[in-house]
């Protein structure tokens, strides 16, 4: 297990996963930030959250998506960003699964506030979200020295760590 985690290729694979997830989150938050009212209706359509929480969610969630997406792209506090993305993906997956199991004919509201005819939720949506959840967990678990600001700051703060062979010897 340790050897598996030590593989240096993880940094590159995780970078690809981060760029992919970060872009998705930046794209997803755009319409929500632009029109929180429409996003609030999207949330209400799930019929899961109490009414008093719906607007707060619509106001806060897009900005958390924006920050997490930016942090993933920049490699800034990457584990925290991956943790946030994983948490949000788990939350979205559960919400969509509940809606699908109820038989609600609706759109997920992930990338645009639109009707069910354009983008209906289905088990495929759940599978897609679960694959993104897996990617976020992959980054969280294996990306130990993320390429980006984290690595630059880490190297700057600890200059002797650039040559690990000498450190270990």
């Amino acid at each position, binding site marked *: 297990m340790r050897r598996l985690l030590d593989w240096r290729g993880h940094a590159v694979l995780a970078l690809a996963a981060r760029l992919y997830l970060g872009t998705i989150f930046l794209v997803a938050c755009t319409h929500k930030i632009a029109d929180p009212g429409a996003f609030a209706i999207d949330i209400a359509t799930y019929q899961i959250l109490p009414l008093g929480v719906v607007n707060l969610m619509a106001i806060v*969630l897009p900005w958390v998506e924006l920050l997490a997406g930016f942090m993933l792209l920049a490699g800034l*506090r990457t584990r*925290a960003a991956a943790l946030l993305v994983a948490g949000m993906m788990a939350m979205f997956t559960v919400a969509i699964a509940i809606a699908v199991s109820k038989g609600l004919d609706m759109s997920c509201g992930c990338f645009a506030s639109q009707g069910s005819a354009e983008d209906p939720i289905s088990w495929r949506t759940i599978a897609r979200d679960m694959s993104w959840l897996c990617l976020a967990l992959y980054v969280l678990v294996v990306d130990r020295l993320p390429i980006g600001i984290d690595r630059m700051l880490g190297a700057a703060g600890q200059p002797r760590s650039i040559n690990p062979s000498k*450190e270990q010897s």
Partner: protein
Amino acid sequence: MPGVAARVAGRRPLHSLRTALRDALIVVLGGAATGATVNALRSHGIPFVQKTAYQILVPCPEGGGDAPAIAASDPAVWQARTLLVDARTAALHRRWHPRAALHVPFDYLEATPPAQVRRIAASGAARVVVFGDGGNPDSGEQLARELAGAGIRNVRFVEGGAARLEEAAATRGAP
């Protein structure tokens, strides 16, 4: 400095899970503060707590079965062992309907009474052909699906509804 070496070798993450949790919490708080500020400043901001329920329209799950379309000119429509079912309103049914057509008005809000479904099931017909208003959605198609979902076999609906059926009846000289 074995700790640094371990981090670079990938054995230990740059940030521990506890640090990541702390950072994540800070991001959530930061996101909440930003969102609240932006919402308060924008002209079309929404109230933080919604007082009245949102008017959401989510169609109820359709429990219907599979009911293919059939052309009004299809000879099977006019065979003796076919039960024709009129899904239209009473007024439209009175205006015109084929002889022996059973009137079962389709209601978009209420399910068809079980007694009507049992009557159709007990008819002994080889097939059930439903015709409606031919609109979009077509009441005939909706009723046909509902009947198929209720277990009635070999249910079809007339494509184009009563208007096409009336034309076909006139062509065939059917009453």
